[in-house]
């Protein structure tokens, strides 16, 4: 207990005085989380819509696969991407290994299953009569998609929150692909791991406090948005 207290006494000034190392990690973490979550949403929401609304053969198998991918171990994703991106590998010529871009790719891939599976589940839970009624009154595919996203917005925002949570807190794949290089491609989570490993406990505690605060602020913000259904309401007003 005393050790924790001692480390906290050192950690708070680091945060308070805006330690440049800490600030660079915060900036990169926010950048990775924003880009990875946005990319996963852009790729994942159409897939979630197709799985939630689709009436094609094999959709149940695909839904089961999407759900199973929620349990995908990040270390496995990191290892597979490493094998694909390493200089001798098929995508080695892209020279992405141990770069910030590799970290963003890994986080996108890890956030994707959450956005696909949870948004598909939210859309499947909509009253079936509403979507059928829209089809029978001549709604185009685009109108149907907008209706489904808007009606399932609470679940869809939950899917984005889950994707963002993954992007903020993942360590294994980031470390494998980015190398966890000091001051270069560290996120708050991977930097915490780095500092603990190096026995710099005060730095680790400072980074962990910032990470927890960031998670709380972002998740609460999205939670409020989710409850109000705001933002999305504005985007879909044109539907009427």
């Amino acid at each position, binding site marked *: 207990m005393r050790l924790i207290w001692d480390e906290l006494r050192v950690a708070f000034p680091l945060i308070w005085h805006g330690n440049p190392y800490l600030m660079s990690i915060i900036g990169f973490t926010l950048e990775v989380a924003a880009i990875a979550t946005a990319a996963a949403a852009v790729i994942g929401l159409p897939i979630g819509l197709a799985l939630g609304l689709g009436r094609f053969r094999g959709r149940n198998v695909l839904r089961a696969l999407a759900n199973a991918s929620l349990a995908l171990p990040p270390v496995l994703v990191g290892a597979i991407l490493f094998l694909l991106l390493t200089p001798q590998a098929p995508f080695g010529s892209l020279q992405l290994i141990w770069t910030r871009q590799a970290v963003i790719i890994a986080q996108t891939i890890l956030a994707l299953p959450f956005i696909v599976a949870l948004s598909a589940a939210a859309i499947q839970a909509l*009253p079936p*009569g509403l979507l*059928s009624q*829209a089809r*029978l*009154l*001549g709604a185009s595919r685009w109108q149907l998609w907008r*209706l489904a996203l*808007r*009606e399932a917005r609470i679940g869809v925002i939950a899917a984005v929150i889950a994707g963002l949570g993954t992007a903020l807190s993942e360590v294994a794949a980031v470390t494998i692909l980015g190398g966890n290089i000091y001051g270069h491609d560290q996120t708050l989570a991977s930097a915490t791991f780095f500092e603990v490993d190096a026995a710099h406990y005060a730095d680790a505690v400072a980074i962990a406090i910032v990470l927890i605060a960031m998670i709380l602020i972002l998740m609460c913000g999205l939670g409020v948005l989710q409850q109000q259904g705001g933002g999305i309401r504005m985007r879909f007003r044109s539907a009427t």
Partner: protein
Amino acid sequence: MTEPDVLLRCEQLSVRRGRREVVREVSAELRAGEIVALLGPNGAGKSTLLDALAGALPVARGRVERHGRVAVALQSPDLARRTVLANVTLALAWWGVPRAERAGRAREALRAMGAEHLAERAAGALSGGERRRVHIARAIAVRSDVLLLDEPFAGLDAEVRASLLEDAVSALRSATRATLVVVHDRAEAWALADRLLILIDGRLVASGSPRELLEQPPTVEVARFLGFDGELDDGSELLLTRPAHVVLDPSGPLEARVTRVIPVEDGARLELQLDRGRVYAVAALPSPGLGQSVPLRVEGGARFPVAEARSPVASG
């Protein structure tokens, strides 16, 4: 050759749900200006027939001709999580109505269904009856050539249903539209329809005006479905009666014994046993008691040869 006012016609239409043929060889047509009620017991295939007429289900055999656009109001009145007015305008957007016309048409349809005062209310805050009103308004607003409604009054208590039915009768009436309403309750069919189609076990067993069918049901099966629950057998002919046909009359030629008394709203429903069969009547209060002998006469009813009435098909 299609007659000019026929907006929807099916010929020898059969529809499957999975491997089971749910609708069998149905031929019917809907004309502009008429409201037709599709009536049948549970599981008769009414909703399946409606889906096939709308084009939402593939046809196994036969064909459907549609002249104009067909709108469908499904049985479940699911609304989007927005205001009532926005729900109706959204339906108009799906239908392809220009944006400038949507609000006016939506309000007009809501007014016709007695729901204009709900326009700004959130759909989630509506009662069951109000949801049904908005659901029907949404279907009327699109002004389709053919309107198919699947049990629009289902799941409502008697009072709300009666009030909704009252508004729907005038709102659904249009000189240019053909309307088919699937109903479960005969009273709804009498209130709404110019013509009845009766579907039993996937087959269209009767078609005609409510009055015609009540006066002369074509088969025993149809008569029983239309509430002919009494039966008097004179050896060669079977007389089927509804309670309205049985009159308790001190000078009546028939004598019956009361075998059951069921209190109803304005009197009692009596089960009356005669030598030749059993009939039902509704008596004003105070009604005859159980076991009491009562004179009666029968006015009307439907007669069928006993051979037809006792055949396995007739008895279902």
